């Protein structure tokens, strides 16, 4: 392949074609950058790390949501590559979509550890206990980079804009499976709605497009089972794990505690 064409869906419904010279190892993001630098500086797209970590360059490539930085032009094996913005999101300009509603859904499931004893959480000098086999129950879902590909691929999101979505449910389950968390009641209230876990119909497109193997479809079914257990079968949720025991060191034996860790922040 010497040259290929990028057919880009731009603002206002226009489809504009750009001819790009191929070079070995070129990604779709490289091609877009070349177009912007050499042919059309008005082309809008979002990117940052260029190595599949930030999740900024999600777009629909050849009909499927992908990260542009991780998609080799050669792997597509096409003379003309079609590029569109991510589906199910409003377009701000060209390939840049409005991710605010998506982030709002993520926030809505309270993606952080919740404890009943807030004072203990905020002022403890020790961490909470978590075993390595317990970590395996949620670590996979912790790798989410919030790129929005699962949200764009989900056929249920396409029909129901109020659906919580695979990413947010996966993150809710990530914390529900964490032994340190005690916020399951609050999260289940969010998930156990007609726009929550019951809306998913297991198309699996979210897991298919996920660039980090977070497997949101699996998390969603596990979250649904949790809701069934606790809401239908009325099983009680577990208590959150306790703090690790104090270290058996000379200082601890003498009752001397190390000073609280300084996280920085504004000086008092």
């Amino acid at each position, binding site marked *: 392949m010497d040259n290929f064409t990028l057919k880009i869906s731009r*603002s206002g419904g226009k489809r504009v074609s750009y001819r790009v010279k191929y070079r070995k190892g070129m990604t779709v993001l490289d091609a877009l950058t070349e177009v912007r630098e050499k042919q059309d500086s008005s082309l809008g797209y979002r990117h940052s790390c260029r190595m599949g970590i930030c999740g900024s360059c999600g777009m*629909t490539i*050849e*009909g*499927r949501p992908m990260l542009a930085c991780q998609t080799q032009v050669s792997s597509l094996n096409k003379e003309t590559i079609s590029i*569109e*913005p*991510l*589906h*199910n*999101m*409003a*377009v*701000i300009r060209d390939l840049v*979509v*409005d991710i605010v509603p998506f982030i709002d859904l993520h926030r809505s499931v309270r993606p952080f550890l919740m404890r009943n004893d807030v004072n203990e959480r905020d002022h403890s000098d020790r961490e909470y206990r978590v075993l390595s086999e317990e970590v*395996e*129950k*949620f*670590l*996979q*879902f912790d*790798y989410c980079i919030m790129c929005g590909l699962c949200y764009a*691929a989900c*056929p*249920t*999101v*396409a*029909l129901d*804009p109020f659906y919580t979505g695979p990413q947010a449910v996966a993150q809710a389950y990530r914390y529900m*499976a964490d032994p340190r968390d005690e916020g399951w009641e609050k999260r289940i209230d969010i998930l156990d709605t007609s726009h929550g876990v019951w809306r*998913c*119909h*297991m*198309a*699996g*497109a979210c*897991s*298919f497009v*996920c*660039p*980090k*193997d*977070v*497997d949101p*479809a*699996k998390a969603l*079914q*596990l979250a*649904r*089972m949790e809701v*069934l257990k606790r809401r239908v079968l009325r099983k009680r949720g577990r208590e959150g794990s306790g703090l690790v025991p104090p270290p058996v060191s000379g200082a601890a034996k003498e009752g001397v505690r190390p000073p609280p860790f300084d996280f920085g922040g504004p000086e008092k």
Partner: protein
Amino acid sequence: MKRDKRFNSGIVSSLNPIGFNLERWSYTVHRITGVILVGYLMAHIFETFQLGAGSTAWTNTMAALHSLGPLELVGLWVVAGSALYHGGNGIRLVLNEAFGWFMGKPILPVYPYSPTSLGKNQKIAVWTITGVVLALWMWAGVYLLAGIGVI
């Protein structure tokens, strides 16, 4: 700043599985067969409702149906296929969603990634259901044709 509505969202986008996984195709067929079944249910309710309108209305309805000729059989065959697929795939979905069957356990992702929820077990389940449904659907076709003395 003025923002457009959601890009490529709606029924057409929801039902388009091209370029996606097997389960997404299964989702599309499940939805379409569901709509066919709802349509059939409505028509069936209308048909049986004619009984209450007297024997003439019932006879006229039956005559109208029979006047469709082979189309009536094709319609019934499509309904049979829809019921079989929707039911069979529905059982798989219940096993997926309520019991976590074919989903696998949480793992530590290792590149090249392969989500366990769309793994071998899920594929076997989808293809088994598709195979059984196709076999029963063919049998239903033979049964319908035998009913009118074609074979």
